[in-house]
């Protein structure tokens, strides 16, 4: 067994420096690496390029890094719900690259799987395809999109073991598996870290080979962005 555990978030983020490109898992606030983000804020590293589907909200998730002006560029598919983000974008303080969501996921997966680029139909004929190579296959047009290159990938899983194997829960899975092994160093934080051998190998979503460091997060707030409920039917 190759051991991937590190004792804490400080060790997990060793080597982080200004100007790096980071991948961060999560969809909205669901499945975000809360502990890694808190440590990035504490360290104060700046001029970061962040690849993440969304940019958090004003006071949580990547919004915390934005508030401290640590992010130079965001690569995302959707960036609503964040006033500070809007302000920085409109003032020209923040560079934003909007990418179709499926393309964003595949640019991560391509980096993970060793593909330099891939063709996708998404964005053909739109401004997303401007300046990119296009090509016809079987009568349909496709756009060539390159794999991401990143220094660190921060992902969050439900359970993990000392070998770095990961299991995700519900829709907190989202971009997290695609980002494992897609950067030079993948740091996984988990709600529950167990000794190797305790997780059923059949149930592993991401094998430890894609993870360099794993630690148990100190606490998870798991904030809900849109709490939608229905009323219980009255029982007679």
């Amino acid at each position, binding site marked *: 067994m190759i051991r991937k555990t590190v004792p804490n978030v400080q060790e997990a983020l060793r080597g982080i420096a200004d100007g790096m490109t980071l991948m961060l898992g999560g969809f909205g606030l669901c499945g975000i690496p809360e502990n890694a983000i808190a440590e990035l804020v504490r360290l104060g590293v700046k001029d970061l390029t962040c690849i993440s589907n969304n940019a958090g909200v004003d006071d949580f998730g990547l919004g915390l890094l934005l508030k401290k002006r640590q992010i130079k560029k965001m690569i995302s598919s*959707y*960036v609503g719900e964040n006033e500070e983000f809007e302000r920085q974008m409109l003032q020209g303080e923040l560079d934003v690259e909007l990418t179709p969501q*499926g393309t964003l996921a595949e640019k991560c997966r391509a980096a993970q799987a060793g593909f330099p680029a891939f063709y996708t139909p998404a964005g053909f*004929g739109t401004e997303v395809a401007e300046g990119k190579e296009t090509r016809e296959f079987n009568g349909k047009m496709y756009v060539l999109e390159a794999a991401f290159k990143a220094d660190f990938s921060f992902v969050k899983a439900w359970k993990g073991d000392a070998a770095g194997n990961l299991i995700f829960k519900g829709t*907190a899975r989202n971009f997290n598996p695609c980002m494992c092994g897609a950067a030079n160093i993948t740091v996984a934080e988990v709600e529950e870290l167990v000794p190797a051998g305790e997780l059923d190998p059949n149930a592993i979503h991401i094998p430890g080979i894609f993870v360099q460091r794993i630690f148990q997060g100190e606490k998870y707030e798991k904030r*809900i962005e849109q709490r*939608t409920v229905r*009323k219980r039917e009255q029982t007679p």
Partner: protein
Amino acid sequence: MLDKNGIAKRIAREVKDGYYVNLGIGIPTLVANFVRDDISVEFQSENGVLGMGPFPYEGEEDADLINAGKQTITTLPGASFFDSALSFGMIRGQHVHLTILGAMEVAENGDIANWKIPGKLVKGMGGAMDLVASAENIIVAMMHTNKAGESKLLKRCTLPLTGVRCVKKIVTNLAVLEVTPEGFQLLERAPGVSVEDIKKATEGKLVVNGTIPEMAL
């Protein structure tokens, strides 16, 4: 004339037994409320769930279980979770049978614009570009005109495009239309709406063949 629920109700009739369906935000979300309960349908949400159910009961919300609109949801028997790359593999690989989404503009050639208004704050396209570029069967749910009363069914889109030549069918508060090589073919009128009303509200080429029936809802 239909309200938003009426549009959703009419679109629900396009959902067939055995369909996997992706619903966009807004009117499309309402479609789930009107699908017949004697057919088997699974709703896909691009953040990684198939077999989406209704909102949870109060107190049963799970932060790890949301839809693409970031709302808390539940799952139904047979549901599954997956990552974002696999989710868009389902969409791009045309395993999802029907995509229903909103639009700001649709052109008579099937072009769609629904993500960006120049000069206004841009929030991003989310999964819309992947969905429209990949889906074989796309239905647009929208009001026929904008708040200023201008037609949203145009000869050419004026806003930045989300996708080209991809919309197949449009259901509005006034009509059901199909995108054909000749233009917007009028299929049905909303209750109490005349062909003349629809002509007036449609800037793009409207094709009217024979008598146009009123929608059955």
